């Protein structure tokens, strides 16, 4: 199966950084955001699919859900040194995500250094849909680094 292309651009902010992402569905927007967040630190093609972690995230709004979900990915790295390469949602209803993340444990020699991201923030967070186009779901996310 060919690698799925994740369509994102990194954003420059004086003290911090972020990314702008487009996806063909809301579900893919959440999945691809997590992969883009990882890709900013370690290129996805350098991560193997040998380990997995299950997570459950719930929130009151789609924005809070995105922030909580991405912070969960940061936590998996901080606590378990886990880098996801592929993500499968087993439940997704806009207010909760149940997911399996497939990837591997971080290896400093193979993956290089990873700079700390303190948190994914609500700052200037944008989520929405464009009137037309294939990748019409978009998100703009800033990180505190």
């Amino acid at each position, binding site marked *: 199966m060919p690698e799925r292309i994740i369509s994102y651009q990194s954003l420059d902010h*004086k*003290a911090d*950084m972020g990314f702008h992402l487009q996806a063909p569905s809301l579900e893919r927007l959440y999945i691809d955001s997590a992969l883009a967040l990882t890709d900013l630190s370690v290129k996805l093609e350098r991560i193997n699919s040998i380990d997995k972690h299950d997570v459950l995230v719930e929130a009151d709004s789609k924005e*809070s859900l995105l922030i909580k979900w991405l912070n969960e990915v940061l936590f998996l790295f901080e606590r378990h040194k886990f880098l996801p390469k592929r993500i499968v949602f087993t439940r997704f209803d806009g207010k909760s995500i149940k997911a399996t993340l497939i990837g591997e444990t971080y290896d400093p020699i193979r993956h*290089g250094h*990873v700079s*700390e991201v303190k948190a994914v*923030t609500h700052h200037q967070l944008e989520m929405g849909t464009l009137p037309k186009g294939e990748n019409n779901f978009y998100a703009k996310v800033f990180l505190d680094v």
Partner: protein
Amino acid sequence: MSSTLTIKDFVLKEITPDIWRFEKTGEMLAGIHFVGSADILKAISDDKSFEQAIHVASLPGVIDPVLTMPDIHQGYGFPIGGVAAFDLDTGVISPGGVGYDINCGVRLLTTNLEHNNLNDNKLIKQLLGDLFDAIPTGVGSQRKDLKPTPFQFENILVNGAQELVRMGMGTTGDLQSIEKSGAFTEARPDFLSPRALERGHFQLGNLGSGNHFLEVQFVDQIFDKKTGVAFGLSKGQIVVMIHTGSRGLGYQVCQDALEDCLSASEKYGIQLSDPELASAPIGSAEGIRYLGAMRAAANFAFANRQCITHWTREVFKKYFPQSELTLLYDVCHNIAQIEQMTWKGSMKKFCIHRKGATRAYPPHHTELPEYLRPWGQPVIIPGDMGRCSYVLCGNKGSLKLSFGSACHGAGRVLSRHQAKKKSTDRAVEKQLAEHGIFVKSSGKNTLVAEMSEAYKDVSAVVQSTARAGIAHSVARLKPILVIKG
């Protein structure tokens, strides 16, 4: 005649040297005092610092004026370099007004060593290597010999650096030289989520990464001799500066509180211009929860800096058995505190948010330990690793001018991405070595992201703070060796 300065659509009026007032308008409940030279303020016209200060000045119960320090730059919700006081009855507390790294702060250790004890490059490199090995840096690493029991860990959250002294990692003398004697009272570890506790437990004693550092420096210049003597500083003396915060524990407390306060803002009808300004009335259940959890995170940060101090002392003893490293002072620069002061003729209690700003109490303040009371509070200002850092002292009148608050550092001018385009880690390391500064970092691109050119000149920030009358320079410090995460 006072001068005016127009930046974008904002008309600022210079009310005293380097303090520019922006009158309240529209939704604002307080005016803003921007502290800085005209050049400093013009330089931030390309970011959203002004707009962010206006958002803060529109929060309920805010006291006029909201202030920004000369190291102002755009942050999340609050601008970095922001100071905002809130009335305890009508005001709010905002986790975004403290930031993710709760009690990020700086401490300075003086030594009985002189620059000529440390002018041999081989010795400097050995000391650098040993300090780097002794102090964990980067995400998640921890020393194997530091394993606090759950009981000790809870005590750390309640008693901060005091618990570390009890564990044999410091002296009682250290405690009087830390803001709040090394522990915020009324900390509530029971308000922390299991996730926050987990993130703290395995990161105690970690320096972190990014702009956090440990530097061995020498005193390059003394500006105020009498205060310098009182602070134990002399020209040519070796000192050690430590800059770090509350690691993942603090970030998680902030994240949890932001969610809690987003609901609270809706519940209490607080209008938010930016979700990162999510707030709760100070006396509400949500406000009390955040204050208690924030204090526990702040205590963790005090303990974190105390661990690093202890290991630094051990390494110095190896090379200089007679060395004595004495804590001059430890200050928080991301914090909210309940403080009492005379304000416009009567005694008031405020909740003061300092986000990228340092407390700078004047002489004779009763919160200061006796040895500092005649002089004023030391304010430790880290610069960038290639230039210099400063020790300031809070001036008489600082409470009236800025609720007793000063700047906290240099402030970035280049994004990390822009910095990476300009140089490489290796080139930065080589350039610093040519100037006699040796660096070691666990991270790729950390050095380039943190290079001098990425920061404002801290000297300009400090000079402006002094011109405004808030604090004055006591000493300038120059780096000899730098450890980065």
